[in-house]
């Protein structure tokens, strides 16, 4: 019964979405206030319907209702409740329902928080969100019904990929989806602005919180995904340039560019055409990721079970939204003439540099991700583009970006003074060089990791210099504290996010000097790695909730003293006979000791041992970046459309 209600709720949501995609937009075109006023109630109605649909799906998984095909294929009664629930969005059908639920949530948020939005703009934005929701609901109903019944019901489900039974991964997709879907809202704002033929500073102010919110979630999602890959896949790496990882990085890059260019729209009333294009591209990249993962055109550990029929449907949706929006863009963009004036040495000039570099990185990543696919259909050649290409191609773009970041943050609007900005950054530059030199000369780092450390120091010190400068720490130390309290949260947020990127870069540089070894140890034997003695104490069998495990005990000693005891495991899942390896990690915030248990041979176990300096900084930096974004989001000027202080143009 409940699954039928869920199915009905999906159909209801679809009808609401279709109405939502017509009435408010037509109303806005005709200037009919009553039609436009339908936008908000429709958006709320859709949220309720989608909530009911997703709730029904969760229920089916929670009670392990084996008459539902999706539950049979993806769940099992022996699974802990949390993984039963996360199983509901760990598969293709359920994840699409979650996707649309989040979209409905965003639509209702625009309706609820957007009281100050001009009525016509709000009606159009909600209407465009209705187009997107309607398309994806049709996709779910016609090709991916999550409530499909199966009769007679099998005695139990067929489990879930044990690799996916993990708390980090349970939360990883929803977080990413919030990010992806958040760019649906900025896309809707862009399309609405094109329909209206007007982009002004107020538009920039409305888009920015959405761009920032989506960016925060995407940052957290990517960070979690990277962390999951690090501790769960057991390869000791944090980023593999896997096509699906790239598919999440692309909207992040486009969104980062949008985040910065929308500031220029808001403050200087220029870069409008570019920002609208970026808003379209950010959502395009989100959809592209969805398409790549679900259509089966690429080979990846992340790819969902896929059939080409679904791929054609998603491609059709993607082309309707993207090509439609870009056609509208080509037609209407000439109306969005810039009104602000533009000096190259200014904050807006720096933000343009930022945009160009970030977009170039995105173009490189996009090209590297798609080239093997297109080379295959164009020339029939099978090529794979791997980390060496991505590292070599993005580094020359990332370095100037990082160098420019603190300088740009120091620049005033309209007309800046490069020399003055550099003067205030001299000690940041000096400490960066010192750290780079120390790494190279004393710690014996190779060139790239040493450069990375210098870059990291430059960003962290640059952010500190920015804050110190704003609060007048050196000019008037007595008032610094008061000024620090008065500094807008957006300024704090930007400084924290910029500094946090430095922390991540330090972690990445640290991984550049990581060491590992593959050893075969019998009980009592030991080996040395990175100044530690790793002693194999023995193997044992363990029984988990739904798996059996072979567990090694490895004691790590330094100078004869026990540092930690690691327990890497190899787990065999009973239901589907899969095995996973659980890496054992000990961290002290400055380095990770990482052990993976391999096969056993002749009474000895094969162990892979890693020493990863600064590794935790990668994810700490990612989270801190998101924290900076959130702090900026909580700025009062973001929440209410209060006129921005100094330098803002009056909205037309």
């Amino acid at each position, binding site marked *: 019964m409940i699954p039928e209600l869920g199915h009905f709720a999906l159909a209801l949501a679809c009808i609401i979405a279709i109405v939502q995609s017509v009435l408010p937009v037509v109303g806005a075109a005709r200037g009919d206030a009553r039609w436009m006023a339908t936008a908000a109630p429709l958006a709320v109605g859709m949220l309720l319907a989608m909530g009911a649909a997703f709730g029904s799906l969760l229920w089916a998984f929670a009670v392990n209702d084996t008459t539902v095909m999706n539950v049979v294929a993806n769940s099992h009664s022996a699974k802990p409740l949390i993984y039963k629930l996360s199983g509901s969005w760990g598969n293709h059908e359920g994840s699409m329902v979650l996707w649309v639920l989040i979209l409905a949530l965003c639509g209702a948020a625009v309706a609820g928080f957007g009281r100050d939005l001009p009525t016509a703009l709000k009606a159009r934005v909600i209407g465009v969100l209705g187009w997107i929701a309607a398309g994806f609901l049709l996709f779910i109903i016609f090709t991916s019904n999550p409530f499909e019944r199966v009769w007679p019901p099998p005695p139990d489900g067929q489990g879930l990929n044990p690799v996916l039974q993990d708390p980090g991964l349970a939360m990883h997709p929803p977080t990413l989806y919030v990010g992806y879907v958040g760019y649906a809202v900025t896309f809707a704002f862009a399309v609405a602005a094109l329909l209206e033929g007007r982009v002004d500073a107020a538009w920039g102010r409305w888009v920015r919180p959405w761009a920032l919110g989506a960016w925060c979630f995407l940052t957290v999602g990517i960070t979690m995904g990277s962390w999951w890959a690090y501790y769960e896949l057991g390869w000791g790496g944090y980023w593999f340039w896997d096509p699906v990882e790239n598919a999440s990085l692309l909207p992040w890059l486009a969104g980062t560019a949008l985040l910065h260019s929308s500031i220029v729209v808001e403050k200087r009333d*220029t870069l409008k055409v570019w920002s609208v294009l970026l808003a379209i591209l950010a959502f395009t990249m989100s959809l592209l990721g969805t398409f790549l993962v679900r259509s089966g*055109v690429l080979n990846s550990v992340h790819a969902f*079970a*896929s059939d080409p029929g679904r791929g054609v449907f998603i491609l059709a949706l*993607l*082309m309707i939204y993207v090509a439609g929006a870009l056609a509208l863009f080509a037609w209407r963009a000439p109306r969005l003439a810039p009104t602000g004036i533009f000096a190259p040495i200014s904050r807006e000039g720096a933000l*343009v540099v930022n945009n160009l570099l970030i977009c170039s990185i995105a173009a490189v990543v996009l090209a590297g991700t798609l080239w093997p696919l297109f080379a295959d259909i164009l020339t029939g050649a099978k090529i794979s583009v791997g980390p060496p290409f991505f590292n070599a191609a993005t580094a020359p773009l990332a370095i100037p970006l990082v160098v420019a970041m603190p300088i740009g943050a120091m620049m005033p609007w309209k007309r800046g003074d490069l020399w003055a900005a550099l003067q205030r950054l001299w000690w940041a530059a000096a400490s960066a060089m010192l750290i780079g030199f120390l790494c190279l000369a004393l710690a014996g780092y190779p060139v790239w990791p040493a450069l990375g450390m210098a870059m990291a120091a430059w960003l962290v010190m640059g952010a500190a210099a920015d804050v110190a400068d704003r609060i007048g720490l050196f000019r008037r130390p007595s008032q610094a504290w008061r000024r620090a309290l008065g500094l807008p949260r957006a300024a704090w947020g930007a400084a924290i996010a910029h500094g946090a990127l430095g922390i991540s870069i330090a972690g990445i540089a640290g991984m550049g000097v990581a060491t590992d070894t593959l050893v075969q140890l019998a009980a009592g034997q030991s080996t040395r790695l990175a100044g530690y003695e790793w002693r194999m104490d023995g193997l044992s069998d363990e029984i988990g909730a739904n798996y059996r495990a072979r567990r090694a005990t490895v004691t790590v000693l330094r100078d004869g003293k026990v540092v930690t005891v690691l327990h890497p495991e190899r787990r065999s899942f009973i239901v589907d006979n899969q095995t996973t390896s659980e890496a054992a990690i000990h961290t002290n915030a400055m380095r990770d000791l990482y052990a993976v248990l391999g096969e056993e041979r002749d009474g000895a176990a094969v162990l892979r041992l890693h020493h990863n300096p600064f590794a935790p900084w990668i994810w700490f930096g990612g989270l801190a970046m998101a924290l900076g974004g959130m702090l900026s989001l909580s700025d009062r000027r973001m929440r209410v459309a209060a006129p921005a202080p100094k330098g803002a143009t009056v909205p037309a």
Partner: protein
Amino acid sequence: MSETPAPAPAPAVRGRRWMLYAPLGLATAAGAGFLVMLRGLQTGDYNPRGVPSALLGRAPPDFSLPPLDASDLPGLSAADLRAPLPSPVVVNFWASWCVPCIVEHPQLMRLSRDGVPVFGINYKDRPADAAGFLTRYGNPFRRLGRDEPGRIAIDWGVYGVPETYLIDRQGLIRWRYAGPMTPEILDQDLRPLLRRYA
């Protein structure tokens, strides 16, 4: 679809309007490319997983392999793979010393239970070890040839064991998969092809 910096940040709008169409053009081209890929997925012309074989669409090279005496199975020769065949045939290169072959074995057993003819080529193996492997894990093969020197594997262009080929009823190689077939590969790749060439 693409992130070209084509429309400059602050475009001088007049005279460069065509640049505004550049993103649309790129997106359309990419969309057309994706459509070709999706079509290719359905027809088997495009496969992101498989390593292509030079033999795709051709008949396997000529060979004749002796049987594994302990197994009572007939040997395998190219004549057994010549048209007309009653149904498509799966040819699997394996060895008892190969750990991924153990991982793959349940999938072969499933195919065999479903009535799909699975022919095995035992690669660089000792007869006793090969027989032991089949006794221990079950025998999915209808025919089994012993390629002890590994010559035939070279002719087929085998990367390593396990490696699996699909031969259609006309005796042409339609699909090759290098590495252990997982249940997903079996269900998503091989089974649709078996249905298509049935």
